């Protein structure tokens, strides 16, 4: 093949951007299409606002865009604004890294009642995702249950009980900070089917919950009974979690204003109505009624099928071998690759996607010499096509304009960044004619 290969990466989350980094290092020309005007996926719209150090990975994820051969095509949704036929015409290969955006529900009676939602919706709302439903009504509840036993459950529990004053310096959008200040929530029940030795918390995140000022964390002694012995054969994280939980079970409550009740080995059974959530029935040794007015389901995320890609509904992922997409009937689809949560399912941390995207990029680079070359290789053709279709493309400089505006808004309030969440306003900023400013 003569001339640089041209690859489209779909999705500017960690997986897509680590793939872009690896491809750019091999002198491949890369376009990164992202349906939002903003890059970084769940680093921007998932990682908790009070974990700014983790969010700083955005700096590393931005690096590919300083190579001349890498472009950001923000506000471009593949499957809608660009079809599989367009991709075949303009790119030698495509890496799909669209993540797993749909928050799963526990699958129990009454879960469709108002007041019950995937935890992912609450995360999207407080993170200022432009498509997030308005979850502020949840904060009118005094008692909320969170179903789940992983780090996302811990994040939402923490955000629900944390003193809003301690969140004032984060990047939370203004309307979210205001809603948290007005929150009525006093009691949050975390309901886990698993026992303390089987939870999937990262111990450091669990410990953080116990250190929140103004919050009592309550663990019943009977809930941790036997857990030490169970954890003995487990991982170091299992033992650390059990140690923390056993310590809390011995701690006397401090009479603080907000409480987190951690309940293990309890199966959520049904939500009570009639018109909206008025309680959650859980079953441990016996049935209990938790008098909650809101329920968040933190039981995982699922991917959505994309046009032209095979999809395995059971695992919620795209079937692949080392990142090469495999159609169950037609075998390996040449030039089609997958990375990140769409490839592995919704597990693992940001860094997991680096190794994962590295595997995919290596497969792609090995295949390149044998791949069919795209007929129209002019980078200008893709942007011209999008322009004819009336899709305003947000360039990397356009995103930087959004970022600078968020920094300007933040500086006025004595914080580094105040996020924007309004899509039309962000698009107006990013695509404003008249060139870059400031």
């Amino acid at each position, binding site marked *: 093949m003569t001339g640089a290969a041209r690859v489209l990466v779909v999705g500017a989350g*960690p997986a897509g951007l680590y793939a872009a980094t690896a491809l750019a290092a091999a002198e491949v020309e890369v376009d990164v299409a992202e349906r939002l005007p903003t890059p970084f996926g769940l680093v921007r719209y998932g990682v908790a606002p009070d974990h700014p*150090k*983790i969010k*700083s*990975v955005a*700096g*590393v994820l931005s690096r590919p865009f300083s190579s001349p051969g890498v472009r950001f095509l923000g506000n471009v949704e593949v499957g809608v604004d660009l079809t599989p036929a367009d991709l075949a015409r303009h790119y030698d290969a495509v890496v799909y890294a669209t993540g797993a955006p749909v928050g799963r529900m526990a699958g129990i009676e009454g879960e469709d009642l108002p007041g019950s939602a995937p935890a992912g919706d609450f995360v999207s709302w407080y993170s200022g995702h432009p498509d997030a439903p308005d979850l502020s009504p949840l904060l009118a509840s005094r008692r909320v249950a969170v179903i789940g036993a992983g780090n996302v459950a811990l994040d939402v529990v923490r955000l629900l009980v944390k003193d809003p004053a301690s969140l004032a310096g984060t990047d939370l959008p203004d309307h979210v900070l205001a809603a948290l200040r007005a929150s009525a929530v006093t009691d949050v029940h975390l309901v886990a089917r698993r026992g303390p030795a089987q939870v999937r918390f*990262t*111990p*450091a995140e669990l410990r953080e919950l116990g250190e929140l000022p103004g919050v009592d964390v309550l663990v019943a002694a009977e809930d941790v009974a036997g857990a030490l012995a169970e954890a003995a054969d487990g*991982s*170091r*994280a299992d033992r*650390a979690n059990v140690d923390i939980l056993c310590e809390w079970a011995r701690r006397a409550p401090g009479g603080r204003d907000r409480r987190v009740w951690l309940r293990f080995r309890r199966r959520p059974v049904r939500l009570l109505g009639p018109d909206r959530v008025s309680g959650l029935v859980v079953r441990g040794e016996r049935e209990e009624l938790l008098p909650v007015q809101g329920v968040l389901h933190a039981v995982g995320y699922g991917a959505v099928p994309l046009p032209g890609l095979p999809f395995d509904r059971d695992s919620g992922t795209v079937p692949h071998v080392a990142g090469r997409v495999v159609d169950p009937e037609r075998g390996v689809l040449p030039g089609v690759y997958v990375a990140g949560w769409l490839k592995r399912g919704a597990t693992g*941390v*940001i*860094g*997991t*996607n*680096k*190794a994962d995207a*590295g595997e995919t990029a290596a497969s792609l680079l090995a295949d390149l010499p044998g791949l069919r070359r795209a007929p129209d290789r002019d980078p200008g053709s893709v942007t011209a096509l999008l322009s004819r279709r009336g899709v305003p493309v947000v360039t990397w400089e356009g995103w930087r304009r959004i970022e600078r505006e968020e920094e300007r808004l933040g500086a006025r309030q004595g914080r580094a960044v105040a996020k924007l969440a309004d899509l039309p306003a962000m698009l107006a900023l990013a695509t404003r004619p008249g060139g870059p400013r400031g």
Partner: protein
Amino acid sequence: MTYVVTSPCVGTKDKSCVDVCPVDCIHDGGEQMLIDPVECIDCGACEPVCPVDAIFAEQEVPAGERGAIEAARAFFDDGGTP
């Protein structure tokens, strides 16, 4: 805070941790790998992948290994060459 590589890495040093570090802050320190405490973002990705459980969050480093915290700091203050 930061994460810290302790002595069980010596003799194993398989670099599993390097593959998953999102900010590439785990470097070859000669006998063992070392984490640059300034660059580390505390994401915890390295800890569970270490086959010999050599990596700890700073506060959790076992008593006998606490020297590793200062050793890593000194190494990177020195410019990071073994």
